[in-house]
């Protein structure tokens, strides 16, 4: 009982329970949901698909976790995904023979630099100009798609350079390559935030920016770099997205991805009010969303109803994670017991 109490207070338990319930549901109602097959040295199956398809959102969620921990928000990440895809596709070029215009590594580096610059722009608006984060990032949310369209001349660019497909479609040791990207980013972010003072400073800024400044910490710098990092993550996510479909579509790449990513962070236990953040929680949150999507597809739910189903589940999960709601429900049961 005591162990449960301690467990229920830790933030990671609720997203895990939610994921468990979703999995359990699939165990009973989706045939072969847990089957994993080995085909040509690669693992295939619903679970692998969930991980693979969830990778772009997971990458976005890593960057957003830090931004949200500062009591900020970055709604431009979806548009930055499109910029990243646009830049890398332009530089690789749509040569049908698959010969890249510039070296693939250079193209990817350039895309990431563009995305970090986009993040820095957001960071500058928020930290130095003092703009409200949702407004500051709204600018790039709108303008980003325009920039992406300009880089691709408003066309959908198809890529044929095979090596680039590794990022989103390739496999390594039987697992999708994108998972290694997620793992690397996650580990690096964990080490930088928790093995240096970065994490504590981010949480301090999110809880009380004024007191942080008064404690002699460069609160503005912290904010700035969080947004820049979110830009970088969006850039990496954009590379994966572009590589998965081997095309760059300024209109659709990363469309509404910001909402899924924000949801993943919040489901993972990081509050929109800033403060304590949970990188692993955000990953679980992203997996919840992806599992939900996959489940709905597995049931052949019509797309127009699928969104409603998704919304209902998210609503239920949010209630489950709300401490106030849980306390109220517990209170109702307690009263009933007394009455009986």
């Amino acid at each position: 009982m005591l162990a449960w109490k301690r467990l229920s207070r830790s933030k990671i338990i609720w997203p895990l329970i939610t994921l468990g319930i979703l999995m359990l549901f699939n165990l009973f109602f989706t045939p072969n949901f847990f089957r994993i097959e080995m085909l040509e040295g690669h693992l295939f199956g619903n679970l692998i698909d969930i991980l693979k398809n969830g990778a772009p959102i997971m990458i976005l969620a890593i960057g957003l976790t830090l931004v949200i921990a500062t009591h900020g928000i970055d709604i431009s990440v979806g548009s930055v995904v499109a910029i990243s895809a646009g830049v890398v596709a332009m530089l690789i070029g749509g040569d049908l023979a698959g010969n890249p215009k510039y070296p693939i590594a250079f193209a990817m580096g350039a895309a990431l630099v563009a995305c970090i610059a986009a993040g820095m722009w957001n960071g500058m608006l928020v930290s130095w100009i003092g703009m409200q984060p949702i407004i500051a990032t709204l600018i790039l949310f709108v303008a980003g798609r325009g920039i992406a369209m300009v880089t691709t001349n408003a066309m959908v660019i198809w890529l044929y350079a095979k090596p680039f497909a590794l990022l989103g479609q390739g496999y390594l040791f039987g697992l999708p390559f994108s998972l290694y990207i997620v793992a690397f980013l996650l580990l690096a972010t964990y080490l930088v935030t928790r093995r240096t003072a970065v994490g504590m400073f981010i949480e301090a800024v999110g809880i009380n920016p004024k007191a942080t400044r008064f404690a002699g910490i460069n609160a503005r710098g912290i904010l700035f770099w969080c947004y820049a990092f979110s830009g970088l993550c969006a850039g990496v996510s954009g590379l994966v997205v572009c590589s998965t479909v081997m095309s760059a579509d300024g209109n659709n790449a990363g469309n509404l991805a910001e909402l899924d990513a924000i949801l993943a962070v919040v489901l993972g236990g990081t509050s929109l009010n800033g403060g304590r953040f949970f990188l692993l929680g955000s990953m679980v949150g992203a997996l919840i969303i992806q599992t939900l999507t996959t489940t709905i597809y597995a049931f052949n739910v019509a797309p127009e109803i699928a969104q409603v189903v998704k919304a209902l589940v998210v609503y239920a999960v949010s209630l489950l994670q709300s401490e106030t709601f849980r306390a109220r429900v517990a209170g109702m049961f307690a009263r009933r017991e007394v009455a009986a």
Partner: protein
Amino acid sequence: MAGEEAWGMSESTPILEMRKINKHFPGVKALSDVDFRLFPGEVHAIMGQNGAGKSTLVKVLTGVYKQDSGEMLLEDRPIRPDSPLAAQKLGISTVYQEINLCPNLSVAENIFVGRQPLSLGRIDWGQLNRRAVEALKRLNVSVDVTQMLSSYSIAIQQMVAIVRVLDVSSRILILDEPTSSLDEAEVEQLFKVIRKLRDDGLAILFITHFLDQTYRISDRITILKNGEFVGEYRTETLPKLDLIARMLGKELSEFSFAMAGEDRKKESQKAGQDARSLLAVKDLGLRGAIAPFSLSLDEGDVLGLAGLLGSGRTEMARLIFGIDSANQGEILVKGRKTNIKAPRSAMLAGMGFCSEDRKSEGIFAELTVRENIVLALQGRKGTFRYIPKKKQLEIADELIKSLAIKTPGANNEAGQLSGGNQQKLMLARWLATNPIILILDEPTRGIDVGAKLEIMELILNLSRQGMGVIFISSEFEEVIRCSTRVAVLKDKVKIAELSGEQMSESNIMHTIAGGR
């Protein structure tokens, strides 16, 4: 003396009487047996330190709070307003400190918002504007009422706020700190309006912390202290010095030197010239916040800043610590000119600052005690020179022990600590950085007596070890007991510096009362 005289005088009957008002909040007795009367055609000021109960009393009167006991009589009829709206209906009109107007609506709209005159279901703009002009005329104010409110000065906006709450049935007007954001000319403009309303027979309750303004505008003064009624006086019979003494709860004859104070004075005389200068401030100032001031702080010095609320003590501290940027003057740390443009540069120069506003400028409620303590030190070392958790715990445990911070453990949330312990926590944060200069803004406010004494003891010990301390407190007694020198401030100006035998409560009060 003055009290008996006031009560004994035969006067017109009061329009409002509050008798034996009591109000408890959890753990605090906000008002105990407070009496208050208001006469028509008079301006009545309520005076008192922070936490004296001024605003609680006004909130009882305006129906924001309900008193636990006691009665209120309006024109001899008992009233119990249960909301500000109910109070307004009874004829009690209030203008709050923050102006609750819409800057992007016209003056006329602001006056009549929510009760616009209608004709055929639509707003009758002609009538609206005409009536607004008439209403303002009552205050001798003539402005173009169709202009946006934001295009006028704060003083005019104040007057619009007054006109808005006044209507024909208003008998009492309450003004809560109406002058705090006005300049001298605007204050006079507002006072003219207040005098006009007073002469029209309105009873006006005026709350301010500006002593001089109280004497310029009020006919009667009620003093509160710690939620208790001290006395009611006619303004002309109450010398300024008496007012200060009564606000602080001292009889003039009672002022005595505390033992610790005596010790400090001897120390300050002994200190002599061999002490090294830690801080020298030359003509530092910021227009609108504080007039240029100079001060110096040697090793082992405790410089007390004494003054009433709003006298500029905090502004001084904020300028030195780089929270606000000065627009003139310079700061020398250990004799070297230092450019302090942000708290960070102040910290790197060896300063620490505990804000008077613990909650919003000091404590990170959701971080642990350990994190709260090591934060500034980690900031000083740099982001990437991480202090390992084990070392953090050592530092935290040591400071928890040496400052006797009461917490279940170093890894508990700081928000759960009591006020006094949070104060110590902020001190611990700065002590961890080993500063040479520590600025403490009201470190003893809102904490219990035991914690107060501990903190004062700590200040004395730190200064004996050679630290320079700037100590701000509203309690002059505390300032004298801790300080080697005292700078006296009044109305955003440093008016004097007292040291040695000159340091006494009565001297500080005389300086404040008599200063320019």
